[in-house]
């Protein structure tokens, strides 16, 4: 997903959009991934393994798991496993349209 995420973040730059990670790797592995993959978006660091407090609280059982949250803070969609870039893009666009319409 890294290439898609990079292009998503680049395309949405300056718009009211954020990709926000919750990362479940050991510290040195995250640091390496951020540098190697040129990851510019922010991530919570969830304690170094998949049983971190955030993943546990959110009941995450498979990685990646994604939540789509609208501008009012309401969960609008969730995926266990990647839905693929194209689907994700269209659903983000649908939420951006709602935001722009001030719904």
């Amino acid at each position, binding site marked *: 997903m890294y290439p898609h995420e990079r292009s998503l973040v680049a395309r949405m730059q300056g718009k009211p959009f954020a990709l926000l990670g919750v990362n*479940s790797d050991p510290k040195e592995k995250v640091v390496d991934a951020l540098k190697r993959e040129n990851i510019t978006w922010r*991530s919570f660091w969830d304690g170094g393994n998949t049983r971190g407090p955030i993943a546990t609280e959110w009941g995450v059982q498979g990685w990646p798991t994604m*939540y789509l949250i609208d501008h009012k803070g309401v969960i609008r969609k969730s995926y266990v496993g990647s839905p693929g870039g194209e689907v994700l893009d269209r659903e983000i666009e649908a939420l951006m349209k709602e935001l722009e319409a001030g719904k």
Partner: protein
Amino acid sequence: MNMRQSNHDRRTAALLFSLAVFAASALPAERTPAQQYEAIVGEYELAQAAFATAVRAAKVGPDRDKVRATKRPDVAAFGTRLLKLADAHPKDAAAVDALVWTANHSDDEQAHKALDRLFADHTNDAKIAAVCEPLAVRITDTTDQRLRKLLAETPHRAVKAQAAFALGLYCKNKAEVRADLILNLNGAEKDLAPVDRKHYEDVIKSTDSVKLANEAVKWFRAAATDASGDAAFAKRAQAQVHEVEHFCIGREAMEITGEDVDGRKIKLSDFRGKVVVLDFWGDW
């Protein structure tokens, strides 16, 4: 005395032998409904295994697609045989097995035939529990009504728990479908036909995601209570309660406060006013 005894033994042995031959020759026609059920399902499983082997043996994508399109076992043919078996022995325990298999494996039309019979004649049978979850995932006009009927009629507490759990899943899935339709109306579905647009709008108007989520919580709670003897199942039901209360579609996302890997503080609410993709990820 010895002589007579041994003659008697010989006669008995001969009689037993001829009985055994008779029984063996009669066996194929006299198989019990349970044996017939096992035979049909066994045949299906062999066909399914052969299909999986053929898919693996085809090396490239197009070949695999061809195998998938042509060699898949004909579920409907097995379903037809099982429905026939259930018809021939409606009071036998194998009838319930045959109907459950068909309900869970066949396409909608055949599955509904099996479900009709199960919910008309077998709501007392504990084995009906196996259709509850697949039924909830399917979402049809009759799902809700069927599960409620089972909940009212079953004498088994464990089946009550399964029916309640399935009703919870049904409500949750309905809320998720509604949420998808809203996104689709806003452009997530390409080239939306006017007739679909109308249908989506009707569904969205006639359902309420918060009400559905609350109803789901009620059912999952009931399932956890009735599953008292089955700790693993009760735990699943409780996990669903937690999920629907906090992370269900339509709920406000719970606050997350934490730090990034460099120790800088982040809060999810910092991003309020923006569309957010929250991505649980790992570099593996």
